[in-house]
Structure formats: structure tokens, C-alpha cells
């Protein structure tokens, strides 16, 4: 190895570092360290002139290793590695000392800061002299994409990608695509009918030559790595032959057995053989074995008798098959908050307390009342209370704001006004109408005549204490603007329930190696600068599985995820970091501890040689194996024992 000639660049970061650290002294100190041929300080090392400075030193002074003492490597390691590459050096002959986050930002000002910065630079100098060149690796990309979830986000992402003539598979566990949006009546703030804008989308997806929809199916296993995922899919038996069924739905008509309709949020019944809603895609029914008399008691078979196409097949079994894809977009959506977990709001006890989802179905022409807003006894309500933040913004349930409830609450006001003469009371804590056209919508609905009461509802009760309360539901709330406790008697209460992570978010997270944020939703790589990527390369997230959002935001995020996948497809291959682990086979005892620990399934056991081997393409360089190996047979490149020891010695020097 050639003699190290180290260049050290101490960054001022404006006043972020130079305000409290004597950068000049740090640079002077660096010059005294072994192998250092030049040490400079510069206001913004990451700027173009700053980068040029380094390049010039590499060319003119023969610098062959570089230390930059500045910010976090997460911010600019790639920037400076690029500088080395452009100047003809291997980018791994570089070391960063984070004297901003780990020094100047961290402590009270004082001379110790400069002292600490010197030690950190010393450590980096010590370590960089031990670095060896590492080579980046290129891996080809499989051009197909898997989209998990066929709601509005999943469909949007699928269309964006498929329109570039690349294959997309949509896996949807329900019998139809469409998701929650298919259940909505109108959409805020434009009040266009959800079905009118969604149904054409669903048709477009179903007819697209580059999209294959796999409904009633779930991902059961995933292996491989970015660009080369192998996906195992389980297709639940529909008991209806998709090739034969013509979608006449006579079976649904004739079936004598019923269950609560999931699509109508439990407000009505559906048959045991059913399509969830009239515009379902595909328009092929499924038999719900849990409610079908044939599966329960081995009789009936009415559907079979009436099916002219002979499409009913009680013998159908589940199908397991594999797909190969390069990218995965997770768009699994949300579940709604269980309103009965706040017993004082009376949901489940009083028939005229509805959740927002139930009310959506009540308003819909395809819903249980054909769009008539009526009470449990069929009367039209004369007064309605709309309760905001049910299960949201509440430490006892979900701390976050669900972001859509203020707006759908306003929408409900309009729909109620349109269809009844009822007086409307909105019980809110804060009105959050922040999207495009939302404040204007708030304005419009206010003008239609709605009573806004600022306060969180304490209780909904049917215990009347005054004549005008008899037969009503009474909503107890402090009007915090008046400073008065109110009892508001109404006929109907609508609870605007929180959007929550899917009940099985944990299993899905484990399956796809996703992180979850404190609120339980899937964790994005960066909340501002990278909201669609995850910590797993090649796995992207979109829509409400990442956090509550409205339709415009879901669609935007889905398009962003699609763009990210398309960029990778267009590149055809990806470079993966050169940092991997390697096993010294002469030292390996074959204990296989590393096999079990590897989170990327990159280590396999060679049965003949009786040693473990690392797949260098799959290895992500996390280092778990190296730390765990009892024989010390595994070297974690770039983090070798020698390098780390040298770094520690530098700190202690």
C-alpha cells in the first residue's frame, strides 16, 4: 500500500461550527498528525469552491486520503465521496469527523469544544490511514413492480408505472380493488361523487395491458433484495371460476344466506356469495365460506344450481405462486378507530350514534338506505351532532391528528343540509382546513348555516333532564368560547373516527422489513426529504399506510413512489454500497450463528465445506455477523477491528 498522504478539511459550517470551535486551531493541530500533508479550514466545505479545494489538493499535493471535519455523514458523506471519485481516488479512502452534531451543537460553549474537535479529527486521521479501496457493485433490476393494496394510492402508483410499459402486479386481499375511497359518497372540497371519479380509474387499471390484478390474494413471503425480489403470493379460493364467470350475479340474487356487509360498514347485510359493491373490479363474486351453508352444513348449493356458466367450484383450493419484481410499493391503507372503545360516546349502545364510515354509506346511493339520511327508526333527523377527534388528538387513544376529519365533518354538514332540514352542531377542538380549497370550503359550509361549538365532547347520553331532551341523544360539551357547559339534544350523532394503522401492520412490517413510527404507521426514510422510501432499499410506501392523509395527498405520494420505482427501472441496474462482510473460511467453525442473525438472508451454509459463506450481492454491510461471530472469522469491511481500534486510539491520544 502506498504511503498515506492525508488532507484534512475543517469546515466552519458558517457559524454552526466556527461559532464555538476554534477551527483554525483544529486545522493547525491536524497538521501535526502523522501522514497529514495539508490541513485547511473553510467556511462551507460542501460548497463548490470547497469541493474544488479538495480536488486541487489531491491533484497538486498528491493527497491520497481525505478527512472532512464537518457535519453528519448522513448529510454529506456521499458528497465528499463524489469529490474523491471525480479526482480519481477510491471514494472509500475518506473519513468524516462529525464535529457539528457530535460537538459544536451538542455542548455548552467553552474551550473544551475545540479540544474535543481535535480529538475527533485525530481519530478520523488515524482511521483513514487504515482504509483500503473498496469497489461499488452494480446489480441488475427486474423491471416489474409489486403494488400491495388496491386502493386509490395503489391504483395510482400502478397506473403511473404501467403507463411506461412496465409490468405491475397489484395484490389486493379484498375481493375487489377500490379501497376505502369506493365507500365514500362525495369527496371534499369539490363534492364530486367518489364513485364517479374512482370507477373509471378502476376500469382503467383492470383493462391496462401492463397491470395484473390479483384480488383476494396476499403476500405471504418475500426474499431477495432490491431489484431482485421473489414474492410468494397466496390466492384465497373464490370458489368461483374466474374464467367461466360472466358476472351476471344471479348467484348473489339467489343465495339465501347473509352476513354483515363489510363494504357498508356493517350497516346492511350481504349474501354469502357476493361482490362487495356493484362496480366491483373484477366483477366476479366470492363465496364467504364462513357464512355459506354448503361449507357450514353441506347443503344448499343454490348458487351452483342457478349458475348457467357453471362457474361455481366448491372444490377450489388456495393457490400459492411466485412473482419476480424489482421494486415493491406498499399501499395497504388504514383501519378506522373502534368507536366502542370510548364507551361514554354511546356507540353500539345507542342506535343513532354512527361512525363517519357508517354515515358515508348512509349518504351513498348504493348504501343501505339508498342515500337517505334517516335514523334507526326510519325518521329523518331534525338535529345532528358531528363529533370531531374521536380517537384522534388524544393521548388515551391516538396522539396524532387524523387530518381528514375536520374536512369530512364539513362535508357531512353539507350533505345533511342538502337532504334534510336538520340543525347541525359541529363539536370541534380546532378546525384544520389546510389543503388547497379547504379554507374556502369551510367558508362555504359556514355560510350554509352550521353551529360550531368549540369543545371536546365529554359524553353522549339518553338520560333526559328537561322536556326538550326527551327521546333525544344529549351531547355534553363545554362551549369553550362561551365558557358554558352545554347539553345539546339531537336526534343523530356522527363520530368522526380516527384513521389508524392496519390491525396487521406489525406482521406486514415484519414481512417487508419496514420500520414503524411511534404512531404505528410505516416509517418513511426521511419525514421531509424522502417520504416515499423506507429503510429497505427497493421498498416504497404510499398513502395512508404511512400516516393519515386525504385523497390528493395519497395520490401525490403514490405518484412519487411510482417515480422512484421508475427511476430505478430506467437505470436498469443499481449500485450498492461496497461495504460488506467477508468470512475467513479458515477461521470459520461452521457454528451458523451468523446464518440466523443476518437480517438480509445473505449468509448461507456450505454443507460440503462446512463453513458459512456471504452472498456479496445480498449483503448490506450491517455488521451484525461480524459482531456475533465467536471465532472472529468475519471481517466487516470499512469497520475492521484495526480501523476501529485506530479510531479509538486517536480519540484517546
Amino acid at each position, binding site marked *: 500500500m502506498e504511503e498515506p498522504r492525508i488532507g484534512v478539511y475543517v469546515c466552519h459550517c458558517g457559524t454552526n461550527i466556527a461559532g464555538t470551535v476554534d477551527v483554525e486551531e483544529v486545522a493547525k493541530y491536524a497538521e501535526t498528525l502523522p501522514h497529514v500533508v495539508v490541513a485547511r479550514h473553510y467556511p462551507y466545505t460542501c460548497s463548490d469552491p470547497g469541493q474544488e479545494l479538495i480536488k486541487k489538493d489531491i491533484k497538486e499535493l498528491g493527497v491520497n486520503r481525505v478527512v472532512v471535519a464537518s457535519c453528519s455523514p448522513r448529510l454529506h458523506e456521499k458528497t465528499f465521496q463524489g469529490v474523491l471519485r471525480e479526482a480519481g481516488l477510491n471514494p472509500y479512502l475518506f473519513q468524516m469527523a462529525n464535529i457539528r452534531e457530535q460537538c459544536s451543537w451538542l455542548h455548552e460553549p467553552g474551550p473544551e469544544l475545540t479540544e474535543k474537535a481535535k480529538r475527533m479529527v485525530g481519530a478520523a486521521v488515524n482511521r483513514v490511514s487504515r482504509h483500503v479501496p473498496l469497489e461499488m457493485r452494480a446489480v441488475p433490476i427486474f423491471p416489474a413492480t409489486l403494488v400491495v393494496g388496491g386502493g386509490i394510492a395503489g391504483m395510482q402508483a400502478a397506473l403511473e408505472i404501467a403507463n411506461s410499459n412496465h409490468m405491475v402486479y397489484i395484490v389486493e386481499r379484498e375481493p375487489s380493488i377500490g379501497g376505502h375511497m369506493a365507500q365514500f359518497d362525495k369527496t371534499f372540497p369539490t363534492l364530486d361523487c367518489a364513485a364517479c371519479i374512482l370507477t373509471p380509474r378502476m376500469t382503467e387499471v383492470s383493462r391496462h395491458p401492463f397491470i395484473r390484478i390479483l384480488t383476494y390474494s396476499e403476500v405471504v413471503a418475500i426474499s431477495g433484495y432490491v431489484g431482485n425480489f421473489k414474492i410468494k403470493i397466496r390466492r384465497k379460493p373464490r370458489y368461483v371460476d374466474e374464467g367461466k364467470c360472466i358476472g351476471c350475479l344471479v348467484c348473489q340474487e339467489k343465495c339465501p344466506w347473509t352476513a354483515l356487509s363489510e363494504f357498508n360498514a356493517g350497516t346492511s347485510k350481504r349474501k354469502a356469495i357476493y361482490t362487495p359493491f356493484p362496480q366491483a373490479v373484477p366483477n366476479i363474486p366470492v363465496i364467504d365460506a364462513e357464512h355459506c351453508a354448503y361449507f357450514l352444513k353441506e347443503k344448499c348449493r343454490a348458487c351452483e344450481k342457478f349458475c348457467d356458466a357453471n362457474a361455481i367450484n366448491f372444490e377450489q383450493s388456495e393457490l400459492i405462486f411466485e412473482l419476480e419484481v424489482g421494486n415493491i410499493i406498499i399501499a395497504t391503507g388504514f383501519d378506522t378507530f373502534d368507536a366502542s372503545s370510548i364507551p361514554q360516546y354511546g356507540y353500539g349502545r345507542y342506535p343513532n350514534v354512527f361512525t363517519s364510515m357508517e354515515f358515508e354509506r348512509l349518504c351513498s346511493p348504493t348504501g343501505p338506505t339508498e342515500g337517505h339520511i334517516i335514523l334507526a327508526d326510519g325518521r329523518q333527523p331534525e338535529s345532528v351532532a358531528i363529533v370531531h377527534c374521536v380517537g384522534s*388528538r*388524544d393521548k388515551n387513544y391516538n396522539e396524532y391528528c387524523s387530518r381528514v376529519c375536520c374536512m369530512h365533518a364539513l362535508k357531512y354538514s353539507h350533505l345533511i343540509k342538502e337532504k334534510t332540514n336538520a340543525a347541525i352542531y359541529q363539536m370541534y377542538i380546532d378546525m384544520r382546513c389546510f389543503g388547497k380549497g379547504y379554507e374556502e370550503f369551510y367558508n362555504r359550509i359556514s355560510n350554509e348555516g352550521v353551529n360550531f361549538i368549540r*369543545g371536546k365532547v*365529554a*359524553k353522549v347520553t339518553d338520560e333526559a333532564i328537561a322536556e326538550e331532551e326527551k327521546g333525544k341523544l344529549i351531547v355534553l360539551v*363545554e362551549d369553550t368560547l362561551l*365558557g358554558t*357547559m352545554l347539553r345539546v339534544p339531537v336526534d343523530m350523532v356522527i363520530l368522526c373516527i380516527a384513521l389508524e394503522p392496519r390491525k396487521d401492520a406489525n406482521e406486514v412490517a415484519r414481512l417487508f422489513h419496514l420500520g414503524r413510527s411511534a404512531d404505528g404507521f410505516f416509517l418513511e426514510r426521511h419525514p421531509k426529504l424522502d417520504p416515499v422510501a423506507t429503510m429497505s432499499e427497493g421498498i416504497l410506501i404510499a398513502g395512508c399506510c404511512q400516516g393519515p392523509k386525504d385523497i390528493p395527498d395519497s395520490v401525490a405520494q403514490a405518484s412519487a413512489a411510482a417515480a422512484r420505482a421508475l427511476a430505478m427501472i430506467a437505470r436498469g441496474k443499481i449500485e450498492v454500497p461496497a461495504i460488506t462482510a467477508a468470512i475467513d473460511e479458515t477461521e470459520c467453525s461452521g457454528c451458523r450463528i451468523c446464518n440466523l442473525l443476518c437480517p438480509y438472508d445473505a449468509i448461507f451454509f456450505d454443507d460440503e465445506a462446512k463453513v458459512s459463506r456471504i452472498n456479496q450481492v445480498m449483503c448490506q454491510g450491517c455488521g451484525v455477523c461480524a459482531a456475533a461471530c465467536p471465532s472472529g472469522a468475519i471481517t466487516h469491511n470499512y469497520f475492521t477491528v484495526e480501523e476501529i481500534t485506530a479510531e479509538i486510539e486517536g480519540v484517546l491520544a
Partner: protein
Amino acid sequence: MDVLSPYKEATDVILEAGGEPLKLCYQCGLCTGICPWNLVRSFLVRRIMHAAQLGAIDFGSEDIWTCVTCRACVQRCPRGVEIIDVMRALRRAVASMGIGVVPDALRISAKNIAGVGNPLGEAPEKRNDWAKDLKVKNFASGTEILYFPCCVPSYDPDVKTIARSTATIFNKLKIDYGLIGTEAKCCGESIRKAGHEDTFQSLAQNNINLFTSNGVKTVVVSSPHCYHTFKNEYPELGSKFEVIHTTQYLASLIEQGKLKLSKEINKKVIYSDPCYLGRHNSVYDEPRKVLQSIPGLELIEFPDAREEGLCCGGGGGRIWMDTPKGERFSDIRVEQAVAKGADIIALACPYCFLNYRDSVLSMGKAETMQVKDIAELVAEAI
């Protein structure tokens, strides 16, 4: 228009005295909606929180002394604000800084507690007189259990029955227990909530030293207020003994088969959860288990029971202050019990006992509605 001139010292005292979570309050008003005072009069908890946030509190207002510290609001506050701590801090500001007026009734009780160690102003040497004829030994090192009945059953002639019933049960079961010398003082729970922090500190130190020097390991208490402070507040001051409420102790004796209840009580009994046993310490099941073990007894529930249980009105020092007729929570409870067809209201707290007894008497219901501590019922059924 008012000029906002925050009383900075007041805000500091509030924040220092545990009002820190106050900053989180987002003024939704849920506390007001839940507060039982609004069943009988207006009491805007939320507004007090806001005034406290701004340091614009009217320290002369009677609102400072209204909160019964029942914890109904804290239990459901969406931001987890320790509203009771804020109320206590406001009271502390008045009591220690003299920037307002401590209500007369409370001042007298505070003076008694500070002077003779009990709110009733009785002589300390009479503390154990209730047990004179019951042959209860004095606690000595090695005695298994210390029984600490609370000042009210120790001195109040009408409430002594709680302590006497408990001792009777213990005697019959030959439990190794004793009473501590008359140097014992009020536990201090309520006077602390009423803002008299210094008094509390000296009471607690006295009791901790007394218990420690006598080698006390386990204390059985009749009052949920003693229970609360012994269990949750004394350990911060160095106490190390275990605390058990009588209902918990009786339930465990029943479970172990040591306590067998054979005499029938053929009555409908309704149990009222004490706030400091229930919401403050999540003890809901043991009192019910004990009642259900009494043969013939039919246990019924209030419309708002357990977590939703209505306070008797006696917490936070309110037990020493007069609440006008028409605003007494225990009156509402007695009406509910009558409506439910109960014969007996069963209790597990001396403060509840005082309030319910007064309600039954003042409402003219004493003939048809009995008020009994669970210990009394057990003593009858044994």
C-alpha cells in the same frame, strides 16, 4: 379591556409545584364536561387551566378551593395533564405565599392538624381510645401488621364503627396486629391537596420515623386517602413499608380460606367506589369480591361505577369545607341508590362515610337507606 399582566411568581410556583404538564393543555374543555361539579353548578376547569397558563389567576376566587381531586378529568384528559397537581399548586400558592384567602373551615382543620396531628382537634393521647375495650395490643417490633384506621374513625364517635368492626374481624381471626402509639399523626393526604405542603412534609416525616423505628413492615388502612399517600407519596420521602387497604386484605383472607362468612345478609347492597381507591389506585375488584362473598347479599351497581364512579364530594380537603345543600354529590348518589332499590350503600372510605351519612340524614332517608362500611358488613356476616 384587561391588560395581561401575568403574576410571574404565581406561574413559577404553579410550574414548580407540579403544574408543569399544564403547558400541554390545549383547551378542549373535556375536563369541564367530565367534572362532577357541572352536575350541580358551573365549574369551568378548562378556564382555570388557561388562567394558570397565563399566570392570570384570581387567587381570591373560591374556584381555587372547589376541585375535589376525584381524578375523573385527569383519567380522560387527551393531553394527560395532571389537573389535580395544578389545582394543588394554586392552593399552595395561596397557602404559602399569602396571595389569597384560605377558607375558614379549611384553616381551622389545617391548624388542628399542624397543632395536634388530627383535623378534629382532639387530644393525641385519645387516638386509640376507640379500641379501649377491644383488647388490641400496641404494635411492637415483630408484630405482623400495623392497623392504621385514619383520624376520622379514630375520633368521630359515629365513624368509630369502621375501626371497631375491622378490629373485631381481626380479633376473631386471631390476626397478629397492633396499633401504633398515640404519636401517630394524620397521614396528610388531604391537607397536602389543600395546599399545605409544609404541614404534609412534617406529618409524613413524623409517621415515617415512627413506623420505621417500630419496625413496621405492613400497614393495613381503612382510608383510601391514607392508602394513596402511604403508597404513592411516602416512598419518595423514604418510607419502605407495604400498604394494604382493608378491602384488599379481607379479599385475600377470603381467598386463602381464612375468613369464612356464614351469616346471611339478605339485602340489596350498592357499592360506591372511593375515588382514591378506584381512579387513583385502580382498586375496583377486591371490595366487590368481599361483598359478593357475603351469603344472601345482592350486589348492585350505580349507573356510573368503577372508572366512571361519582365522587362523594370529600376529596382535596373538601371534607372540611361546607358544601351547600343542592350541590352535594353524595345526595345525588343517595337518590341513585334509592332509584336502584338498594337497602344499603356500601363504602370503603371514612370520608365517603361522613358525606353519605349526612346525605341520608338530611334527606330524611335514614329509615330506608343504611350507610355501611364494608368492614361493618363483614363483621356482621362473620
